[in-house]
Every structure is written in structure tokens, then in C-alpha cells.
């Protein structure tokens, strides 16, 4: 099965899961920094994974990618991608001290990995509880490089499954309206066999 075969009902369910999951992630992040952080999901869509570098502004745009494997009743990959500017701003806000481009220091790297962990855990937790599945994230890995280079392993993983990914656009808003929005993209790519597990579970709860 491929993402192309998903129905509008499946996508609606995935949108609902995305909103609940990101809501939980916002709560977790806010507690982490003791400041209200609002996470909005302006768009949930399917994308051809080879178009992903263009979503980032081009294959040579520098981004920070955090990836985790999904384990449990379904398997797959989660990738969170931030434009470099947004990644540095997010690290700065969470750490309360500057991160100077182009290098992220060790604390910055750990912080962004932890953000990836929180987002993936919250998302998978929401998905698991709504669909009665056990879904667990692996430890997060980070790469800070050109968008094309950061995502090409996903293209390789997906070359057997129709090259499509669920894309959840994510915006981090702080309490102060003057603060610029930090934007990121959250990609969910179930393995082909696991996509059937997910659609089956969506069908079972609807």
C-alpha cells in the first residue's frame, strides 16, 4: 500500500491526530522552558518526498534535521526539519543563550534533539492512544547540512513505497506577538506494511 491510496477519511483522521499530537507537544515544550509555547499546525498534506528540498527553499538551503525511527505496532521514520535560522532561534529560546551560526554548540544540538524527541513522542503518543496502537520513538539523531543531503536517506528508504510522505507543517509561537514565528516541518513516513496497519486502525475506530 502507498500513501496515494489514502482516502479523504484517512487524511482527516491523520489531521485530527496531528492537532492532538502537536497540542500535547506544545504542553511538553512549554513545561520544559516554563513559558507558553503555542504549536500550530497550519497544514497537513501529502508530498512527494523528492519535492521536500523545495519545501525547504532548495536542496542547497542549510537546515537542521532530527530523525527518529518508529518502533512498535507500526514502524517507520519521523523527520523534523527546521530552516537553519529557525533552528538557531529555537535553540536560543529554549536555552536562553545565543547560538551563533553556522555552528550549533553541543547544548544546542542536544536541545534540538530533545525537541525532536518531544514532538515525535507526543505525536506518536496521540496516534497510539487514538488508534489503540503502541508506537515508540527511537533515540533522535541530528544532521545540520544542506536540505538535499539531510533528506536523501529518506528518499532511499521510501523508494520502495511510492515516495510519498505525510507532511505536517508546524509553527512555534511564543507568548509575545513581537517574536518571530519559528517554523518547521514534521514528516511522518510509515513503512509500506505499517501504513496498512495505520489505515486499518483508523477504519476500526471510525
Amino acid at each position, binding site marked *: 500500500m502507498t500513501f496515494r491510496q489514502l482516502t479523504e477519511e484517512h487524511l482527516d483522521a491523520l489531521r485530527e491526530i496531528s492537532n492532538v499530537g502537536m497540542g500535547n507537544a506544545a504542553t511538553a515544550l512549554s513545561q520544559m522552558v516554563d513559558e507558553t509555547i503555542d504549536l500550530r499546525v497550519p497544514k497537513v498534506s501529502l508530498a512527494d518526498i*523528492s519535492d521536500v528540498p523545495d519545501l525547504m527553499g532548495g*536542496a542547497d538551503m542549510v537546515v537542521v534535521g532530527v530523525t527518529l525511527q518508529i518502533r512498535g505496532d507500526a514502524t517507520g521514520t519521523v523527520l523534523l526539519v527546521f530552516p537553519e535560522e529557525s533552528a538557531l532561534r529555537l535553540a536560543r529560546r529554549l536555552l536562553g543563550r545565543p547560538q551563533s551560526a553556522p555552528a550549533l554548540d553541543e547544548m544546542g544540538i542536544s536541545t534540538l534533539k530533545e525537541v525532536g524527541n518531544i514532538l515525535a513522542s507526543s505525536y506518536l503518543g496521540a496516534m497510539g492512544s487514538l488508534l489503540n496502537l503502541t508506537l515508540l520513538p527511537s533515540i533522535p539523531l541530528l544532521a545540520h*547540512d544542506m536540505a*538535499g*543531503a539531510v533528506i*536523501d536517506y529518506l*528518499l532511499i528508504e521510501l523508494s520502495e513505497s511510492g515516495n510519498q510522505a505525510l507532511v505536517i507543517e508546524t509553527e512555534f509561537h511564543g507568548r509575545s506577538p513581537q517574536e518571530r514565528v519559528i517554523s518547521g516541518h514534521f514528516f511522518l513516513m510509515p513503512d509500506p506494511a505499517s501504513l496498512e496497519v495505520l489505515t486499518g486502525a483508523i477504519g476500526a475506530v471510525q
Partner: protein
Amino acid sequence: MSERTRVGISEYRVAPAPAHLVTYGLGSCLGITLYDESVAIGGLAHTLLPYPREGMDLTRPAKFVDAAIRLMLTDLLQLGCSQERLVAKMFGGANMFEGLQNPNREGIGQRNIRSARETLTELAIPLVAEDVGGNFGRTVEFDVANGGVLIRCVRDEQRERHF
């Protein structure tokens, strides 16, 4: 300023001088150039996987290292290159997320590199330069006028290298 042609993922392009063939952000993907200096015609491929496996989508054959080299070769011979005079260079094949790959298994970047070596050996095309492996991305700019390749990196200390 000569023409710059962008080569996307799973694509290849061949062109005579004064073309510049460019591909951006190779991670574990492998970029391969073939060049015949005597006629100043060359090709660049941006490949993803070593070779097809059962059940894979074969609509874009240049996705595969082996097929991309052979397709480029056919096109270059048609443009007047000689197989005996062709030389190859390869770039990329990195492992971007350390720890992602099972240490007991060869990573995809390594397998792409090995596939390119095997295909080039089989076709008797000498590999004259390479910059492969590591954990950083590379952009390839191939100047068909002289066969030179400029590699740009954002993470490595040495940001620009000539091959």
C-alpha cells in the same frame, strides 16, 4: 557566464562545453561525472540507490547508480564521445546521520560507491578522482569546458575543493 544546468535527484544530463552541470546537496546519494576531454563533452548523474531490487519503481532508471552510468554512456557515445577516452569522477556517498546505520551492515552511501566502482570497472572507464564518504553534504559543479569539478560543502572545514 556559461549555461548552468541543474541535475535533480534521480536524473542525469549530458552536454557539450561550455555547459556547467550542477547538482545540489548530495548526502548518501552519489554524483558521477563522465568526461571526454578531446571533444569537451560530459555528463553528470545524481543517483540514489546502487541497483534495483524487486518491487521497486523503475520509472526513473537514473535513480540507480549502475543504470545511470550506462544511460549516460549511451548518450555520450551518441554525442561523439569515445568510450576509450572517457574518464569518471564520483562524489557523495556520505552517512548523514551517524548511528542511523547498523554498524555491522554496509551503509547505503558505501553501497552506492561500491556499485559505481564495479560498473566503471566493467565498462573499463577509469575513475580519476573521488571525494566520497564522511558525514557531510556536497554540491557538485561540473565545468564541461575543462572537466573540472568544484565541490562545495557547508559543514566541512574545507568548504571548496577542486577535482
